C-alpha cells in the first residue's frame, strides 16, 4: 500500500509527471475571470467563492485522464490486478495520491487566489475548509470516471462528460459553504452535507471503480 502511494507521488514529482499543471491551470483561470468580467471589485468579491470552487473543480478534472491511462498503457494495471492487493484498495490509494498531488495544492493555493478576487475576510476559513473536505470527493469520483473510460482511445472528452454531472452535488454544497461563509451566513449545514458526500464517496466509489476497471481489463 505504502509502496504504491510512494510510487505514485514519486512519479508525479519527477519530470513529466504533471505535478503543478493543475495548480497553474487554477491560477490562470482565476486570473482570466477578472479579465473577462471587468475590474469590478464588488462583483468579484461576490462571485469569488463560486469561481474558486469551479476553478479547483476544473483543475481537478484536467488531471483525471492521466489517473489510470499511464498505468493502463504500460501494463501496470494488469499486473496490479493480478497481484494479491485488492483492486479496490489499489484504486483508493491511487485516488489518495491524486488528491495529495492535485487537490491539496489547490486547497493551499486557494486563499492566495482569493486575494486576487477580493474575497471578503470572513470567507477564507470556510473556503479552505470546504475545499479541503470537498476535493477528496472530486478525486474519487474522478477515479470512477477514469476507470470507466480507461480502455477508450479518445476517452478524455467522454470522461469530462461523464464526471461533470457527478460533480454537481459536491460543487453545489462546496461552493455554497464557501459563499455562505463569505457573506457571514450560516454555513454549517452545507458544510456537513459536503462532508457527508465526501465520506460516502470515499467509502463506496472505490468499489464501483474496481468493478468497472475489472470489466475494462478483461
Amino acid at each position, binding site marked *: 500500500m505504502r509502496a504504491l502511494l510512494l510510487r505514485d507521488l514519486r512519479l508525479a514529482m519527477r519530470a513529466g509527471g504533471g505535478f503543478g499543471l493543475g495548480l497553474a491551470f487554477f491560477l490562470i483561470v482565476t486570473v482570466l475571470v477578472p479579465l473577462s468580467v471587468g475590474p469590478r471589485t464588488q462583483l468579484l468579491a461576490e462571485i469569488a467563492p463560486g469561481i474558486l470552487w469551479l476553478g479547483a473543480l476544473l483543475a481537478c478534472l484536467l488531471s483525471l485522464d492521466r489517473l489510470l491511462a499511464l498505468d493502463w498503457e504500460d501494463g501496470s494495471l494488469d499486473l496490479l490486478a493480478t497481484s494479491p492487493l485488492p483492486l479496490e484498495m489499489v484504486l483508493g490509494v491511487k485516488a489518495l495520491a491524486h488528491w495529495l498531488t492535485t487537490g491539496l495544492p489547490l486547497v493551499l493555493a486557494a486563499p492566495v487566489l482569493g486575494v486576487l478576487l477580493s474575497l471578503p475576510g470572513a470567507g477564507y476559513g470556510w473556503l479552505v475548509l470546504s475545499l479541503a473536505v470537498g476535493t477528496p470527493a472530486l478525486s474519487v469520483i474522478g477515479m470512477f470516471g477514469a476507470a470507466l*473510460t480507461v480502455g*477508450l482511445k479518445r476517452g478524455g472528452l*467522454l470522461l469530462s462528460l*461523464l464526471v461533470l*454531472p457527478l460533480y*454537481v452535488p459536491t460543487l*453545489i454544497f462546496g461552493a455554497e459553504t464557501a459563499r455562505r461563509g463569505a457573506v457571514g451566513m450560516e454555513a454549517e449545514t452545507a458544510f456537513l452535507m459536503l462532508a457527508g458526500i465526501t465520506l460516502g464517496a470515499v467509502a463506496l466509489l472505490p468499489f464501483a471503480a474496481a468493478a*468497472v476497471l475489472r*470489466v475494462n481489463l478483461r
Partner: protein
Amino acid sequence: MPTLWGLAIVSLVGGLIWGFFLTPDADKFASTVKIIYLHVPSALMAINAWLMMLVASLIWLIRRHHVSALAARAAAPVGITMTLIALITGAIWGQPMWGTWWEWDPRLTSFLILFLFYLGYVALWEAIENPDTAADLTSYLCIVGSVFAMLSRYAVNFWNQGLHQGASLSLDKEKNVADVYYQPLLLCIAGFVLLFVALVLYRTGTEIRARRIGALEARERASA
C-alpha cells in the same frame, strides 16, 4: 405490438383532444394551463425512463440477461426526448406564467441535470464497441449516476427554493387539480406510458436483431 401501438395512439390523441379542446379555460391561468397535458406526462416519463434503466441495469448485472441490457439502451434516447419535451414545454409555459423562459428553479435545474446524466449514459454506450463491456459499464454508470442524481436533487433544493408549484399529482395528498382537468390528464399519462413501452419494445427488438446479425456474421467468418 400493433395493439399496444394502437392503444398508445388512441389514448394519446384522445387525451390531448379532450384536454386541449373540451375543457374550460381556468380563470387564473387562461388557456396556457393546457400545456400540462404534455408537460406533466413527459416529466413523469423522463424520470420513470431513468428508473426503468436502473432496474434493467441491475437485472443485467445480477442475472446477465441480454434483453435487459438492450432494453436499458433502448430506453435512454426515449428518456432524453421526454426530458427535452418536459424542459421545452416548461419554458413555453413559464414564459406567460412567470414572465421568463428559464429560471434556475430547483425542479428545472434538476431536470437539466438529469438531461446531462442521460447524455453521459448514451455517450458511453456509443463509445464502446464490445456490447457486453458496454452493457456492464453503462449499468454501473446508471447505478452510480442514480445515487448522484438523487444527491443533486437534494443539493439543488437546498441551493434555491424556487418558483415551481408542488407536484400536480400525488396519491396521498388531496388533488390540487380540478376534476375536469384531472381526467384527461390521466388519459394523457396513460398514453405517454403506453407510447414509452411501445417505443422501448420496438427499439429493443431492433437491438436484438442487430446483435443477431452480428452473431451470424461472426459465425460466417469463422466457417469461411
